[in-house]
């Protein structure tokens, strides 16, 4: 038997101080700084147009349309770069903004980008058609035929629009995640194909000058971000840590814990964060799945607690000790550093208990935990939860039953929350669980009077 038996987990028995000091909280300012930087960059992009366009020079309808088209072209070019940058997995962004907000921004900016690109193309097309006094179809053939890199730009627009349509929730959810991800890789193609026409035909960019330098600088920043976040960073991280499977343990029905060994594990990530894990074993190495750490890092092992529902996760049961693991991360800002108050309430739904259990170790003493599960059998990690709670002066509420039972229904109301945790307004609330549950809990918390900035959640779907 290895020393990973459940009753010994949690880093409570041996090594290190039994009660961790919580990490220093840092403010939300980081996210605001990034947001301001994004806006400033955008403003500079538009200023380039403002500076190059003389006052009163847009003196007919064609020029007006082209002017608007150029502004939107600059906006679209900038948005495209930022949408890619937001997904580059650069550590700074992941830490300061958080994976959840990043993916939200990425989705929103992406939607705006598609509309902006279409508006840019049609305004330029119609504008020149008006100037030349020809039909827009004729103008289209002129633009395609006589301008450098316009064909590839049109292809880029088509890909972008296609991706935009696929991203509509109703369509995306019927696709397998891996297919969606594969198709999404073509967005790099958009970056590549749209690059040429910006510099060959962009009114503000085709001539050398500060504007062009700025634009090139943006490309350099984004490409460097991609190279670092997608290639160099993960490579160094994995070479440095050398993760391997140490043990796979049953936690309950359909739930397993995977223990990982490696080097310098204490610095690998924070409680509450997740990684995309790729287990380099036959049959499973093709897929990478996001799993959170289910125990705070302790220098001896990392642990993931996984619900084995799909084909891939079920196959993970058969992992052999010593299997190499490739990790991408750590991701997410669902950590103790996000707290704004002295106390916390942690709410877990189902398998969401993993990161919550890890966070409980890093949050200040006196936290409360609400663990929502459908039955007693579905409660996992119970022994260690109770022990950590005892050590950290926390109380744990198990709310069991179907969602139509009285107790679970009462929990998801403002009054119910206040009944369990009377001082909930003065606590940070960490939520983790299925999307619907988290949403319901958030609205209950709002009606209980918890400010939005005190609520922190993580999403399992991206």
């Amino acid at each position: 038997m290895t020393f990973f038996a459940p009753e010994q987990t949690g880093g409570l028995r041996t090594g290190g101080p039994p009660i961790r000091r919580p990490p220093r909280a840092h403010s939300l300012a980081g996210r605001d700084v990034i947001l301001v930087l994004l806006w400033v960059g955008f403003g500079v992009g538009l200023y380039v147009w403002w500076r190059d366009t003389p006052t009163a020079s847009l003196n007919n309808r064609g020029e007006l349309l082209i002017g608007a088209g150029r502004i939107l072209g600059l906006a679209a070019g900038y948005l495209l770069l930022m949408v890619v940058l937001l997904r580059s997995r650069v550590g700074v962004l992941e830490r300061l903004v958080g994976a959840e907000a990043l993916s939200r921004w990425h989705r929103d900016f992406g939607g705006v980008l598609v509309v902006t690109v279409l508006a840019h193309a049609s305004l330029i097309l119609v504008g020149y058609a008006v100037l030349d006094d020809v039909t827009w179809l004729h103008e289209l053939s002129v633009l395609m035929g006589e301008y450098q890199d316009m064909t590839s730009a049109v292809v880029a627009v088509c890909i972008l629009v296609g991706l935009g349509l696929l991203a509509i929730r109703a369509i995306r959810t019927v696709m397998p995640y891996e297919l969606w991800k594969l198709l999404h890789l073509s967005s790099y193609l958009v970056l590549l194909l749209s690059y040429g026409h910006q510099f060959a035909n962009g009114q503000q960019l085709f001539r050398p000058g500060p504007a062009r330098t700025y634009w090139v600088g943006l490309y350099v920043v984004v490409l460097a971000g991609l190279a670092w976040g997608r290639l160099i960073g993960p490579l160094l991280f994995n070479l440095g840590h050398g993760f391997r499977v140490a043990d796979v343990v049953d936690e309950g029905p359909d739930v397993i814990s995977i223990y990982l060994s490696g080097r310098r594990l204490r610095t690998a990530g924070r409680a509450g964060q997740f990684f995309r894990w790729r287990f380099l074993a036959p049959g499973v190495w093709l897929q990478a799945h996001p799993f959170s750490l289910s125990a705070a890092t302790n220098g001896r092992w990392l642990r993931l607690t996984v619900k084995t529902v799909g084909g891939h996760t079920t196959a993970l049961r058969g992992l052999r000790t010593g299997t190499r693991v490739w990790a991408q991360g750590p991701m997410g800002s669902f950590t103790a550093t996000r707290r704004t108050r002295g106390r916390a309430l942690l709410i877990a739904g189902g398998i969401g208990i993993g990161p919550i259990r890890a966070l409980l170790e890093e949050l200040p003493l006196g936290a409360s935990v609400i663990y929502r599960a459908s039955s007693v059998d579905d409660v996992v990690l119970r022994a260690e939860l109770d022990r950590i709670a005892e050590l950290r002066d926390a109380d744990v509420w198990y709310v069991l039953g179907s969602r139509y039972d009285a107790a679970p229904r009462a929990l998801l109301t403002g009054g119910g929350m206040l009944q369990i945790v009377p001082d909930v307004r003065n606590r940070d609330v960490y939520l983790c669980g299925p999307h619907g549950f988290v949403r319901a809990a958030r609205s209950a918390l709002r009606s209980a009077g918890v400010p939005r900035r005190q609520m922190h959640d993580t999403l399992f779907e991206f």
Partner: protein
Amino acid sequence: MRRAMLSLAGLVAGTTLLVSLKSAPGASRLPGQVAADNAALAVHAAVSATPTPGGGPVDGLPSAPEITVPTASGAPATTKGPTPKPTATATRPPTAPKPPSGQPTNTLGDSYSTEFGYVTVGVTLLNGKLTAVFTDELPADEPRSKSLSDKWGPVLCQRALTAQSTTFDTATGATYTSLAFKQSLQSAFDKAGFATR
């Protein structure tokens, strides 16, 4: 979703604001009218400026004061993008002495402005015969004009040479440039004392 909608609305409003701030009063006129106005004005616009060193095929020309070409809106002429370089254009008097025979001479016509930039055409005569037509300046203030100019400049020159006159087909998609080309060519013919067929 709400954020995306707000951003879109902001973008539309911002673009409209920026464009209207840079627009001229009465900007909704059709470009044809403006171009017509421009063409009318351009006829009087024998733009010439201080000769730039090595600025053109013809040198040693007297300098003339720079003339500002008013645009249709009445504002001072400011073409799109950075202002064009001062152009060295020919103002050789028509009574120029005949060059010794056997030596080709280059003569530049007047510059004619289009909405997209200036057009200056030059001709090379050898023993009174037109042997070459070249352009000293074509609209290049924006990539679109530049690409049109690059494409049609040589074609127009060739057509002029073949026709030995200003009567030849204009360039499709570059009508105004073609018209200005012909005007400049005619003035070059006049200056060089070349009689068209």
